[in-house]
């Protein structure tokens, strides 16, 4: 509901990297729900994955009269220049999901992508008995999350000498691309035991490509914990995914922004743990996240605050 936002006295700008992905839609929804609850007027901008656009939107936030800016950087390095003018004019900056390089922001609220990659790697290794061929579905080349998830996963999987990465191909975080790319990779690698997809959308595409093999002959690992992803975990087609709790990220970010505006103290580093979700624990995530109502997301807070 936007009913109370028009009358609210606080204006906060939320700069989202892209809404082309349910993950960020969740993040926005979490933030919006919290903003409505606490009476903040939330101004949302979508940078469509372009750093320069995001910098433009940071400038425009000032024109809009935002008292605090929440940034979900398209790219951590590039965000440095974007937030510099905000910081120098004493507008609180909260970084969410991804960091702002070399910058002391008011608060950094994120899940750790490198850690998430590690979680997936270990789970995968265990599930396939620490040996066999696997393939990786990479995110958009050059994107920060691709780098971090790839690095976390590969560094960890290197610890298992009998696991070989037979192929790595990009599907640009996209479900339909993953469908084709997986089909093609299976063509040249028939003896694959598992697939690591750097997000759930691609994992879902891989499921489509594998058909009945998904979750049986070939185990699929995802990342994000989106609604569809969690449902697939429950169905057993995705073996495990890394839940990022995007709604919590959004909610925490709004709380931090409001506190900063009011001059209250804000925790500088709030790391929202990423959690491995498997069939065993999926129920608890599903109950809170599969519903789109805003209050249910706040009830999941308990799982993640430190």
């Amino acid at each position, binding site marked *: 509901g936007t009913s109370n936002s028009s009358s609210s006295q606080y204006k906060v700008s939320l700069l989202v990297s892209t809404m082309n992905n349910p993950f960020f839609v969740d993040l926005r929804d979490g933030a919006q729900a919290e903003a409505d609850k606490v009476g903040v007027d939330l101004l949302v901008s979508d940078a469509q994955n372009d750093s320069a656009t995001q910098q433009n939107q940071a400038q425009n936030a000032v024109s809009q009269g935002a008292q605090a800016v929440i940034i979900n950087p398209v790219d951590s390095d590039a965000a440095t220049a974007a937030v510099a003018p905000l910081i120098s004019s004493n507008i609180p900056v909260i970084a969410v999901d991804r960091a702002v390089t070399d910058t002391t922001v008011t608060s950094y609220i994120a899940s750790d992508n490198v850690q998430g990659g590690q979680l997936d790697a270990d789970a995968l290794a265990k599930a396939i008995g620490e040996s066999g061929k696997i393939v990786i579905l990479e995110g958009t080349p050059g994107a920060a999350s691709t780098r971090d998830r790839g690095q976390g996963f590969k560094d960890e999987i290197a610890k298992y000498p009998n696991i070989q990465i037979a192929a790595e*191909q990009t599907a640009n975080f996209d479900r*339909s691309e993953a469908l*084709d790319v997986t089909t*093609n*990779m299976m063509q*040249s690698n028939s003896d694959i035991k598992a697939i690591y997809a750097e997000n759930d959308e691609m994992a879902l595409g891989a499921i489509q490509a594998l058909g009945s093999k998904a979750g049986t002959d070939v185990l699929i690992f995802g990342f994000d914990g989106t*609604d569809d992803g969690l449902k697939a975990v429950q169905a057993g087609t995705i073996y495990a995914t890394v839940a990022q709790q995007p709604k919590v990220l959004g909610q925490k970010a709004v709380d931090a922004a409001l506190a900063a505006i009011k001059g209250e103290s804000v925790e500088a580093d709030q790391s929202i743990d990423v959690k491995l979700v498997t069939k065993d624990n999926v129920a608890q995530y599903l109950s809170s996240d599969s519903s789109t109502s805003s209050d249910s997301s706040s009830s999941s807070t308990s799982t993640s605050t430190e």
Partner: protein
Amino acid sequence: MSIATEHKARVATAGNGGNGGSHGNGIGTGGGRHGGAGGSGGAAGNHRFLAAVARFVSRNGALVGLVILCIVLAFATPAFLTANNILNVGIQCATVAILAFGQTFVIVAAGIDLSVGAVAAFSSMIMAITGASMGWNPWLTILAGLLTGAAMGTLSGIANAFLRLPSFIATLAMMSVARGLTLVVSNGRPVSTSSLVNFFGSTVGHIPMPIVTMVVMGVVASIILNLTSIGRSMYAVGGNMEAARLSGISVHKTQIVVFMLSGLFAAVAGLVIAGRLHSAQPQAADGYEMDAIASVVIGGASLAGGKGKISGTFVGAILLAVIRNGLNILNVSSFWQEVVIGLVIAFAVSVDTVRRKVDAH
């Protein structure tokens, strides 16, 4: 500068079609020449067959490039030339091919349609939402999606014909509007589709429905373009708009029909995408317009209009799918992949121009 170049070159060399300046593919002449060249040996029937093959090759853009590419891939990896992989390529090119068939109408009529990807996404979202949240009969949801696509195309056509917006602008605007509406109605989330929709993405027995759909749409497009008067009007409007007008062809009507068909074909592509993913994705077919346009141009059409064939477009779409499939199978690193894709496209299309040049001498 080839958007409009070929057209001009051809017009300009009226009466000397075979000179150095003209690199147009003379409709129906290349084959004759070719046939003559291959005509020394064999019986007359054989000769005629060869001539027909030669004509087909010379009329279909990058076919030679495609064949070379396939041969290279067949040698590079045994995984390429398997029955299964060939079907895969077929399935993988289906969506772009269907979009490109629709795009062929537009390009033949000297326009461009940037909205096809977004219209495909919106149409499939309509199919999903009317089913999932509104509980319509599955057939009705598909009909609604197809009508949506045709309606959006018609709007672009009206903007082009009556508001006189350049088609680039009209369809750029439509792309933005359609994508935005998709996000709005879906709230940015995927929506699952009915099993009827999913049928169009599935493989029934050994028959992949995406390929069936593609072939049907290709045949329909080919019939429209070659055998109906509205199809022929597209060539006339694209080849010389004023001449078409002076001959009593309704340019406006042609323009509107062209975009309506493009929208309708986009909706069919949307049906196949959704069927394959068992869901309508808000970002479905993002950027596919470029692949569709590239298929048409690779297939020998000119963005200046008046030229283009469904068979050429088909070759173009297959070419793109083969490149991607091959690179995947060969596991080329995703960074280098882009480099290689660019080089292969350039190579495959220039094979065609080189062939034509040699042909002309």
